[in-house]
């Protein structure tokens, strides 16, 4: 079917801040590409299909995982991954190297995801809107009495549900930073916001998750 090698091999490079998931060898996004990577990128920009297949192999895992974490549905995540890489194919010649290629590709994929969320009825039109959830969606600022603090063990399903219930903007920042392991400066570039905004949104996301988990604890503590 294919006249190019199947891009099934991911690179075995580690990320200094690698915190995401269970994968040991994530492609780095914070370092400049090495000469071989830069050559592959240049070839793909020139229309070389083999080089594009290599780029796909390099980045497919992270883009697919991001899509899956954002929408929580395998079939949808596959479609979004496909759309993100098709957009990459159409736009790759416009990449000028102002940011790391991986950061640029993530920004592109994030826009694809947000468009999908909008189609599903969420009132998200742009990254700006995703970054500014409705005030009533924000976390409370109340402190917990000691008997309501988390105990150090969090139910996996409860946390998953709490993350899925976050407003899309909070969820995006939380996943990019706490799950994917991106730094705030990278997230700011992806989302076209300030580093301070990225930090603030992340903090609000964590507070909102805490609210949700404490609510669950309260519910379970009821006789």
């Amino acid at each position, binding site marked *: 079917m294919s006249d190019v090698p199947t891009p099934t091999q991911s690179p075995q490079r580690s990320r200094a801040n690698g915190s995401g998931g269970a994968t040991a060898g994530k492609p780095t996004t914070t370092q400049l590409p090495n000469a071989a990577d830069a050559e592959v990128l240049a070839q793909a920009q020139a229309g070389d299909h083999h080089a594009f*297949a290599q780029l796909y192999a390099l980045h497919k895992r992270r883009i697919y*995982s991001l899509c899956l974490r954002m929408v929580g549905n395998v079939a949808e995540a596959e479609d979004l991954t496909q759309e993100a890489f*098709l957009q990459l194919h159409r736009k790759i010649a416009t990449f000028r190297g102002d940011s790391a290629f991986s950061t640029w590709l993530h920004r592109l994929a994030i826009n694809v995801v947000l468009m999908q969320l909008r189609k599903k009825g969420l009132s998200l039109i742009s990254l700006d809107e995703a970054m500014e959830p409705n005030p009533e969606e924000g976390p409370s600022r109340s402190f*917990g009495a000691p008997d309501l603090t988390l105990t150090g063990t969090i139910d996996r399903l409860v946390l998953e549900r709490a*993350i899925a219930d976050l407003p899309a903007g909070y969820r995006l920042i939380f996943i990019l930073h706490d799950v994917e392991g991106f730094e705030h400066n990278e997230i700011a570039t992806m989302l076209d916001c300030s580093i301070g905004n990225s930090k603030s949104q*992340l*903090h609000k996301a*964590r507070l909102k*998750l*805490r609210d949700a988990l404490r609510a669950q604890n309260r519910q379970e503590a009821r006789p």
Partner: protein
Amino acid sequence: MNGDVSKMSCAEFQDQMAELIGSGEDPNAHPHLKECADCRALLADLKTIAEAARQLFPSVEPPDEVWEHIESAIKRGD
């Protein structure tokens, strides 16, 4: 709620929390925390959540069909 020794309110401390968690520094060394049990509890919770989230989602490969669809679409000129 907070002691005056740190000369920082809980709200001011919370504004710095996003920076503190994951910065590599020990957030527990912050003077405000020595005086404020509520902020200590909050910080402990947020660290627990961040650590739990890191282990929550495995990173996974897309199935081979995704590339096949991409390749077909490129060949069609989509």
